[in-house]
């Protein structure tokens, strides 16, 4: 069994058997998506914002980064044969464990659930919130996942500030 570990800001998409995608979550959220017919699965790991005193991320910013993170995963899966209408989801993470980060974990988890509802993607399993970190193992081909609560404190790196998007990208054609 090959293991692929992902960290915050990454995603992995798998079509081969005998691969497990793993990640460690604190306040971040991981969405595990799979298409049971095409046997394509993938996982992302995202944090929607870092509400520090001098770089507060607005609700609007959080939403658009979350939507973007989900779109990258879904588009990547569709390129490998998945169909949006067949996708099912497992959602993990969103713990409130970093002192000073308030309820950022809850906001992340609420976003993920709202997103799946809006897109009509069934959430087959979810384990979010609380104060423990989580270790996630996902078998994309089978659509099976396992969540283990981690006793230690936050496994995440300190939250990475959300970078502001480029206004126009690198290409100056217009």
């Amino acid at each position, binding site marked *: 069994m090959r293991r692929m570990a992902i960290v915050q800001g990454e995603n992995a998409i798998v079509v081969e058997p005998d691969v497990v995608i793993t990640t460690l979550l604190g306040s971040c959220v991981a969405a595990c998506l799979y298409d049971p017919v095409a046997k394509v699965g993938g996982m992302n790991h995202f944090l929607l914002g870092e509400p520090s005193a001098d770089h507060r991320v607005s609700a*609007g*910013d959080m*939403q*658009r*980064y979350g*939507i*973007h993170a*989900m*779109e*990258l995963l*879904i*588009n990547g899966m*569709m390129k490998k044969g998945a169909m*949006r209408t067949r996708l099912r989801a497992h959602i993990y993470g969103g713990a409130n464990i970093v002192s000073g980060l308030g309820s950022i974990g809850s906001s992340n988890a609420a976003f993920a659930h709202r*997103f799946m509802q*809006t*897109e*009509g993607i069934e959430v087959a399993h979810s384990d979010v919130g609380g104060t423990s970190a989580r270790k996630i193992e996902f078998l994309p081909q089978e659509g099976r996942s396992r969540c283990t609560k981690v006793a230690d404190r936050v496994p995440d790196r300190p939250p990475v500030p959300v970078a*502001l*998007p*480029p*206004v*126009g*990208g*690198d*290409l100056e*054609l*217009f």
Partner: protein
Amino acid sequence: MPAAAAIKVMVVDDQTSMRAMIRRALQDLGFKDVRDKSGASEALSAIKTDRVHLVISDFNMPEMDGLQFLEAVRNDPVIGKTVFIMLTGSADKEIVQKAAALGVNNYVVKPFSPAALKEKIERVFGELT
């Protein structure tokens, strides 16, 4: 009345959340007539029947992608001059160049802020508010 209120817009993206977010951003900018479709072929039929001034379309869509959609619009004798703004992922430089060759009016890199979208629209239409 702000200029935006007179501009009819068609938003095309296969992701419902993205369409909803763009609609909200456009409404905040003063746009009143915003329609949306989840696919390019549907959008193409809709704007042929009921013309719009501005199309904002994702590139990455199943079946007809944003470039094919742009090409179909530009090749149409009636709606060929409709303003077309493409939404792309950050790594899609080649796509932006292809879109420019096909006559796209501008492009916006995801994830974008409402201010970035406003700026790109204003480069084509002038001040919106």
